[in-house]
């Protein structure tokens, strides 16, 4: 918990319909520069930036993370009864699905977990950091 006070101003007040009546008419002219294009990255879970808006530090962070993800083992789902459903997409695993194994032995569809790991290097199920040991060995090698 914590930090809510500091960040509360960035919250959306009205989630869909302007129930508190401050829905402003958008009259701003179009931005003078073309909208940023290219893939969007998440240096932190709540921060999204297009590739050309990343700071150098964020680029390094993301590049490192991409490298680390590739170090996590993948395989195909073997029908193991312990993990029946990918908790991210809530779709049952089918034998032959591409899955990724985290160090805590939780498994997910590769495309589901990779999307999450690019935002936060934690296991969605147990919130364990995805192997700090892996991180240090990678950084020092």
């Amino acid at each position: 918990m914590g930090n809510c006070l500091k960040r509360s101003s960035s919250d959306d007040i009205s989630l869909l319909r302007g129930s508190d009546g401050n829905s402003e008419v958008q009259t701003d002219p179009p931005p003078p520069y073309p909208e940023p294009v290219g893939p969007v990255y998440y240096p932190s879970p709540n921060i999204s930036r297009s590739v050309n808006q990343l700071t150098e530090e964020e680029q390094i962070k993301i590049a490192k993370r991409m490298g680390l993800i590739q170090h996590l083992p993948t395989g195909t789902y073997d029908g193991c009864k312990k993990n029946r459903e990918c908790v991210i997409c809530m779709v049952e695993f089918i034998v032959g699905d591409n899955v990724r194994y985290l160090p805590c032995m939780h498994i997910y569809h590769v495309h589901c977990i990779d999307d999450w790991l690019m935002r936060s290097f934690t296991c969605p199920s147990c919130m364990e950091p995805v192997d700090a040991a892996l991180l240090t060995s990678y950084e020092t090698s």
Partner: protein
Amino acid sequence: MVSLPRRIIKETQRLLQEPVPGISAVPDDSNARYFHVIVTGPDDSPFEGGLFKLELFLPEDYPMSAPKVRFVTKIYHPNIDRLGRICLDILKDKWSPALQIRTVLLSIQALLSAPNPDDPLANDVAELWKVDEAEAIRNAKEWTRRYAMEN
């Protein structure tokens, strides 16, 4: 219109088929990502007997990012401000895609049972909660009676 992810369809079905006690969440007729929520005030809390309306919205990249949730009914609580915004870690930096609409709403219900004035969002409420808890609880009960018991 972009088709709805399987996960949202599944969660919605489960919410309607096996509702959580004390919580109802119904998708809007015109937007399946927007839910009308009612949480009953937990027993033995100052909110007991109240029916609290909330709105919940699943953003485009849900479940990679947390649902957006806000109280529509006014509530006197140290972690909920006058605009209904909620200070709850799982809605911010502790979000995980393993959490669901169901678990989010259960956490909000639990927050009503256990206000945390040391991590305030509504400063004046939290202050009173710390210096004169009895008075704060009286206020919370009064607000519950006034705003959350329409019938």
